Structure formats: C-alpha cells, structure tokens
C-alpha cells in the first residue's frame, strides 16, 4: 500500500512535468518491465531496447494515466504493445539474433538442459500466452493485473496461464495437472 502511494505521488509529480519523479519511476519499475520483455521475447538486447522505448513512450503519455491505476501494469502494457510491433519487424529480430547469442549467459549442468527446454517451450507459445506466463508465473502479477496490462479478457488470461504452465512443466518432464 505504501509503495503504491509512492507511485501515485511520483506519477502526479511526473504529470506536472517533473523529470526527477519520472526518473524514480523508471528506477522502481525497470526490473519488472525488462524482466517481462526478456521473458516475452527471449532476446535480452532487444528486450532492453524495447524497455527504453517503453519508458520513452510512457513519458509522452503519462498525462493519460489515471489516478490509482497500477503503474507496473501500465508500463508492462506499453511494453507488450512495443513487443508485438517489434515481432512484426522480422528483419530487426534477425539483426539482434547474433548479439543475443553472444550476450545470453550460459548456464551449466542440469539447469542448462532445463533452461534450454524451457526456452524452446516458451518459443512455442503464442505471443499473448507467453506474455501471460511471463507476467503471472514469473513476475507475481495477479490475473486481473495481467488482464489490465495486456488488454485481454480475464478468462483468456487465466486459460493462457494454465495452458502455458502445463506446456512449460511438460517440457521440463514434470507431470503436474494442478493449475
């Protein structure tokens, strides 16, 4: 509650034109936005570029953010639309692929195999399903918050998360029907 109050105060100050307040919002939410984009697009360099574009777009639109809205969900919503636009630009993805191969940290041992299997399973998910998984399973978003961020119906988010989770667990060789 206190943290949300801080966000509200910072948003109000940023709406009044304070770049310092906006800078603090960037500090507070960069981890959530970058983490979401990394999981949603699987390319760390592209994800960080998109995160920068997200915050830049957010600065231009912050006047439209209504009081009391979840700032994290709002940022992630902009990030999701940036990600979808970037997906349409196939050439850009190809250019980034080489850089990602170099930048992506390697993991060792059994975790490496799991990670490769997970990446493969994530890549096989539809973009909206992958975004739901990235928000709800990895970033502690509630279904309602993810629904708000992605502009998807609540029921769709729930089913995307359940099906995505089942596919990811299946890729790890875990048989778990509980959702």
């Amino acid at each position, binding site marked *: 509650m206190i943290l949300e109050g801080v966000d509200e105060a910072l948003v109000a100050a940023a709406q009044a034109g304070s770049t310092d307040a906006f800078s603090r919002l960037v500090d507070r939410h960069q981890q959530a936005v970058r983490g979401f984009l990394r999981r949603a697009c699987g390319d760390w360099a592209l994800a960080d570029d998109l995160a920068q574009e997200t915050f830049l777009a957010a600065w231009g639109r912050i006047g439209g953010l209504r009081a009391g809205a979840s700032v994290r969900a709002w940022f992630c919503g902009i990030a999701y639309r940036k990600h979808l636009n970037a997906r349409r630009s196939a050439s850009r993805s190809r250019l980034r692929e080489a850089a990602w191969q170099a930048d992506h940290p390697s993991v060792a041992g059994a975790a490496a195999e799991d990670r490769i299997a997970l990446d493969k399973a994530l890549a096989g998910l539809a973009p909206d399903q992958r975004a739901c998984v990235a928000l709800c399973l990895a970033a502690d978003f509630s279904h309602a918050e993810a629904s708000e961020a992605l502009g998807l119906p609540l029921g769709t988010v729930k089913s995307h998360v359940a099906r995505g989770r089942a596919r990811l667990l299946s890729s790890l060789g875990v048989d*778990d029907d509980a959702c």
Partner: protein
Amino acid sequence: MTPADERLRALLEMDEPPARDPAFSAAVMEQVMRRRWLQDLGFLAGLSLVGGAALWGLWPVLEPALIAISGRLAPAAAALAVGASALAALRALPGQGEVPA
C-alpha cells in the same frame, strides 16, 4: 506453490534484471531529456513563426502608429536607458551585494 512451480519460477527468474540499474535508468532519462528539448525547441520555433507572421500581417497598421508615437516615446526611452545604465554601474561597484559578516 508446488515444487514444480518453484522449479519453473527459478528457471524463469534467470531472466530477471538487477533491481537497480543506474546505467539503464540514465540511458532512458537521457532520451527523455533529448525528447523534451526537441519539444521545447519545436514549441519555440512555432511560437517565433506565429509571432513573425503576426508582425508581418499587422505591420501596415503598426508602422504608422509607431512613427506617430516614436517622437513622444523618445525622451522616455532615453531616460530608461540612462536609468538602466546607472543601475548596472552601481551594482558593479565593489562591495555591492555582499552580505555583512
């Protein structure tokens, strides 16, 4: 949370960026400031264009009026200039504007 979910979450958390990343925030704010500067520049350029166009449009009306009043304004303008110069000279004197200890 089931052990399977914990395992899944641990794997997904490998993508987590650091909680604080000053370099990233600085890069974002640099772009924000650049955009703000361009917006300000655009606004001032637009304002100058509008002002210039208004002056150009009103000049046929303004010119005779200015010529008519310039004779009467000249002494006042001269007095203002002398006053401003005197003020500037007084401020430049040593010891002016210093706070006594």
